[in-house]
């Protein structure tokens, strides 16, 4: 089976954020899946992957949590691909996969906890974890998108923001940096490719993989605000109208600290923030409400109307 066919039906792991503040990402991912004829089967009775917090209490606990999600997909649903749109989930599943392949102690802890919890232990290699970007890139591709675009994003200048967890650390992403066609960890381009296929004009954005301070959004808000301001200002300077995101933590972080910067530092950076799935969805002819534009904190409806997308 080719990758293209393999990704036509995948186990979908939305994760906690996509049921709360990141619901617009959930809605838009499902909507474009439906529009493109791709089948998303939600992982049954899933649990949190551990996010960025559990590892600070104990990294192996996080490995267990992530492994349980993969175990359910593999052993209870008989799926071989798990698609996680959230960078945090995607990163943690990848990290668990790496640890279970390379670290004996992790295997022991996960096996012990899985047995006590009463489910099959996940074994490395049972499933392949992919991001929503891999999913569309491989199952549909740029050419496939170009054929299906109804409202071109032409004239919209986009800064593609990938954040930390999609590319770092390098060793948990063995398929990246693997020559032509593969994703790059230093200059990721999958989101750029997809949005360009939908007609958008990508600006040269140097802070693609900069950190938004998501881990300390609430515990060290001043640091996060400074980091987000860097990103917003750089995107603005690069000439972008919109920052496209592919992670709910980054997305909410940018929205929150855009407001916080204005309130606390008196610095206002006028730039729209949208999930890449929202932009793609509208390019495919979906209405803004269908892709959850009304669920974003920062309002971009008037901008979208101006550009003929709403």
């Amino acid at each position: 089976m080719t990758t293209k066919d393999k990704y036509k039906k995948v186990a979908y792991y939305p994760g906690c954020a996509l049921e709360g503040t990141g619901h617009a990402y959930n809605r838009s991912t499902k909507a474009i899946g439906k529009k493109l004829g791709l089948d998303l089967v939600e992982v049954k009775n899933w649990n949190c992957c551990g996010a960025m917090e559990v590892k600070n209490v104990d990294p192996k606990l996080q490995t267990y949590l992530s492994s349980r999600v993969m175990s359910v997909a593999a052993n209870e649903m008989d799926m071989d691909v798990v698609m996680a749109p959230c960078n945090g989930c995607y990163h943690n599943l990848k990290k668990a996969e790496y640890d279970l392949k390379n670290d004996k102690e992790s295997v022991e802890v996960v096996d012990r906890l899985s047995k006590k919890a009463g489910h099959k232990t996940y074994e490395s290699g049972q499933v392949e974890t992919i991001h929503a970007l891999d999913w569309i890139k491989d199952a549909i591709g740029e050419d496939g998108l170009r054929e299906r675009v109804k409202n071109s994003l032409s004239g919209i200048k986009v800064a593609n923001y990938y954040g930390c967890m999609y590319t770092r650390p390098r060793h948990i992403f063995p398929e990246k940096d693997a020559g032509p066609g593969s994703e790059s960890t230093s200059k990721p381009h999958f989101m750029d490719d997809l949005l360009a296929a939908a007609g958008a004009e990508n600006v040269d954005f140097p802070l693609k993989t900069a950190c938004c301070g998501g881990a300390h959004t609430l515990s060290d808000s001043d640091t996060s605000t400074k980091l987000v301001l860097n990103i917003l200002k750089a995107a603005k300077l690069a000439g972008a109208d919109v920052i496209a995101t592919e992670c709910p933590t980054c997305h909410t972080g940018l929205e929150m600290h855009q407001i916080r910067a204005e309130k606390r530092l008196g610095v206002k950076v006028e730039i729209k923030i949208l999930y890449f799935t929202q932009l793609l969805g509208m390019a495919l002819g979906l209405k803004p409400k269908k892709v959850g534009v009304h669920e974003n904190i920062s309002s971009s409806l008037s901008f979208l109307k101006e550009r003929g997308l709403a």
Partner: protein
Amino acid sequence: MPIHEKSLIRPENLKTHDSLILDGVDVSGHWSTFIESRVVADYNEAIEDEIAALPGGEHIHRCWQCGSCTNSCTVNAINPDFNPRYWIYLIRMGMESELLRDKDIIWQCVSCNKCTYACPRDVFPEGVMKATSHWLELKGHTPKSPSMHFDEVFTEQIVKTGKIEESRTIRRFFQRTNQGLLQDWMLEMVKQLLRGLPIGLLTRMGLATFVAPRTSNWSRASAAMQEYIDEQHEKQEEALSLAQLVKAAQEDVAA
């Protein structure tokens, strides 16, 4: 030009005198500024092993001080005192008092993993930062950082229910760190969100604050994880000889 990563001369160690004559020589003014030397006499050779015993710190011994971590660090760019390379050096040398000068900022690592990406020796500096801030808290050098409070609130909820419900986590975190929930920017955020009238979303989030989303049949997993956490805490206490520390403190108080 060499990279000027860190000056070891502290402003308070620079001594100038308006009028001072030493052995008949006038040494007043800036031209004869003295630099008071740093004296380190309290090497604590146990620190490296103790930090290596905490999760994340395992590979600290691999460091050969190239400075790639500090050079790539997100936090260092906004606060030059945040210096992973230097802290790893101090830990490996056992220079405890020097390390403690920075004890209140080490927890501010944002886990962006740029250091781990750049490190040629697989030290995993991000993990070392977490282990170090954990060590400072366990040894009683610093109170629990806001970040650790957040991690604990978060983990407790997952162990209990299997899932995170954001508003509950945020509320508990603000409670535990004695902050008001009604920050001006939070209110503004809610106001802006309401403008779009996301009725479905609000209903869902509203319901979630009453009925926490949970993974079903979670109780066995929950018990297993709690047992594992307790076990790990015991191991860490032993590695850091915390029982002896408490005993010594009690004897001090008694005497």
